[in-house]
């Protein structure tokens, strides 16, 4: 099970020399991008919270966190990677294993993915394939198995392609939520996954262990929600900072992340009391929705929005790389094993606003999430972010636009690629959009 298959079904042969060379260059380039992103975030808020230092450090994909995981692995711990948010991380934690999300946010590696799949394929997928090809992602390399959830077409085939290297556990997600058999089916998938994880790690997921893991998740969600609550008022944190905090949860130690986020919130609450805003309270409030934006290269859009002239401030998002990670708690009634597993199943399926879902009312949950966010976070404009080849998000745009038109909130469809070449064109559009929002405020 641990051995790589002898014959690769998808991946081309790449020489060790080429792997090493490409990895060295791309790693160096990525370190530069991460450092630059953080530099710009620091510059955007001269009084940036002390607590952000921790998240800056943990955001280094080649830094402290991967060293910690390596040390844990050396002591016999298993690492279980995943590509979609549907992977039930509580089960992984309860089996004393480490969950990490392994999607690639590197533009450079998407070109390598082109050796395996055509350019029409979503760049998140191409880039993740490319990163695996040259062993760029420490978390991917450290993963002993990957959970591949069959959501969009790209994710479905990505798992298959990565099976050339890794043990893959597929999870079949029903695309219609509101039928009784869907939840039953999905809950069976969850139970199956529990058995798989137990066998693989050799650790039994006991009632107590699972309760502990769920409680840890609860605490993390509470800390996250406290941070989001702070973003409802006049801005006390740049959107990019909050987004980085959100995203580091995907690979950080869950308890430590929670404590650091709590410390950040303490600082921000004091800042709110002092009315010490990060930018003028009149700054147009922007929400981002659409394709996930993985660190570090995809900080392109948030950086443009918050450094634009006129400036915008990101106060919310509806992305599986952002708020969706922690928005919903696992709702347990009785702490019996069965009840906990069903609650996990329900949380991962029913609370998801992934565009892979449809129903007699369409993907109503996503529309409701967006409308509620707009109302509660006083969002003045929405950027609908789509990378080329991201079909489901692209297709749902028209519906989202109609829903937002009804409440008179402008939305801009911004399409891009895994490339830095289009920053100039993107800037033109983002600036025009913010100019429009500013003009509406003045009207």
């Amino acid at each position, binding site marked *: 099970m641990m051995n790589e298959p002898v014959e690769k079904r998808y991946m081309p042969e790449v020489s060790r020399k080429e792997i090493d060379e490409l990895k060295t260059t791309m790693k160096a380039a990525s370190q530069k991008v991460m450092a630059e992103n953080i530099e710009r975030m620091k510059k955007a808020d001269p009084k940036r919270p002390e607590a952000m230092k921790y998240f800056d450090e943990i955001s280094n994909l080649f830094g402290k966190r991967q060293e910690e995981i390596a040390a844990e692995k050396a002591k016999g711990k298993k690492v279980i990677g995943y590509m979609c948010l549907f992977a039930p991380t509580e089960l992984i934690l309860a089996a004393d294993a480490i969950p990490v999300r392994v999607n690639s946010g590197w533009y450079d590696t998407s070109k390598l993915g082109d050796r395996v799949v055509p350019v029409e394929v979503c760049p998140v997928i191409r880039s993740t394939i490319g990163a695996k090809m040259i062993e760029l992602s420490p978390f991917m390399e450290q993963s002993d198995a990957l959970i591949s959830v069959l959501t969009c077409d790209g994710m479905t085939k990505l798992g298959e392609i990565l099976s050339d290297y890794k043990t893959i556990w597929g999870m079949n997600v029903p695309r219609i939520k509101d039928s009784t058999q869907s939840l039953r089916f999905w809950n069976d998938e969850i139970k199956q996954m529990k058995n798989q994880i137990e066998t693989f790690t050799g650790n039994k997921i006991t009632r107590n262990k699972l309760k502990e893991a769920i409680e840890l998740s609860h605490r993390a969600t509470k800390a996250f929600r406290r941070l989001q609550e702070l973003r409802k008022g006049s801005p006390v944190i740049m959107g990019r900072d909050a987004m980085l905090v959100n995203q580091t949860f995907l690979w950080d130690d869950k308890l430590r992340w929670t404590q650091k986020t709590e410390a950040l919130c303490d600082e921000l609450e004091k800042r709110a009391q002092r009315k010490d805003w990060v930018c003028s309270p009149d700054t147009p409030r922007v929400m981002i929705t659409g394709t996930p934006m993985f660190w570090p290269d995809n900080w392109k859009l948030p950086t443009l929005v918050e450094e634009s*002239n006129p400036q915008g401030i990101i106060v919310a998002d509806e992305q599986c790389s952002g708020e969706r990670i922690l928005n919903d708690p696992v709702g347990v009634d009785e702490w019996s094993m069965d009840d906990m597993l069903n609650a996990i199943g329900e949380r991962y399926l029913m609370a998801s606003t992934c565009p892979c879902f449809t129903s007699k009312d369409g993907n109503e949950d996503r529309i409701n999430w967006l409308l509620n966010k707009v109302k509660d976070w006083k969002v003045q404009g929405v950027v609908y972010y789509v990378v080329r080849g991201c079909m489901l998000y692209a297709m749902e745009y028209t519906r989202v636009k109609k829903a937002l038109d009804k409440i008179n909130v*402008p939305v*801009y*469809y911004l*399409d891009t*690629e895994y490339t830095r070449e*289009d920053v*100039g*064109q993107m800037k*033109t*559009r983002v*600036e*025009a*959009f913010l*100019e*429009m929002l500013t*003009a*509406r405020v003045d*009207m």
Partner: protein
Amino acid sequence: MITVGMDLGTQRVKAVVLKDGAVASRGQALSSFDPTKAAEQAVEEALKAAGLKLSDVSYFAATGSAMDMAPYANGTVSMMGADAKAGVYLFPKARTIVDVGAEEARAVKCNEKGIMVDFVVNERCAAGAGAFIEAMARALEVKLEDLGQLALKAERASPINASCVIFGESDVVSLIHRQESKPEIARAVFDAMADRISSMVHRLGVNPDVVLVGGVAKDVGFIDSLNRKLGLTVSIPQYPDYAGALGAALTAASRAKGAQK
């Protein structure tokens, strides 16, 4: 009060001098490798034509893809914002402005004050912009300015499905191999372009008062195709390529007025 608007486009820099709310003069220069210098030239030409000096100008506003490189600029305005201002100034009833330039096409929806309320930009592809016509004129060995007249002579349309300049060019080559006549191929080129632009306009919601501006608005072949695709007659100002600069000059005027108060 004198204000100047500069539009630093991908091919040309245009300048408009506005005196007490009316256009006093225009100037332009090729962008080449130094848009800053080109803008200086365009402004100099325009001021000279109006008999004015740099020091007479209360406010300079810049727009266009190279607006950050503009000389003298007191401020900038987005290309879409400038389009909206100019469109409503030129045609007070206009609520949709379509701007087709060398490398980019956009459609802007605005209110009666010329404030944009929505916009769409062609999706990072030159097939809906002037560069496409240029490439196709080359493929047909026709002068760019003659392509439009040629298209008007076409008796029928041969559809091509241009998703980008490169594919468009190979589509045109297959039409040549099929021995289609030049007028028909020319019309196919404009139709393909107008198709892309009209779907952009439809995404914003059609509105009977559409203004067409930008360098391509001077091309009779394109105008004919766009009118047919949209099922209406678009309004075109006398100097469509100066719309961006005009919008910037109007923005400059309202900002200068705001500063005086």
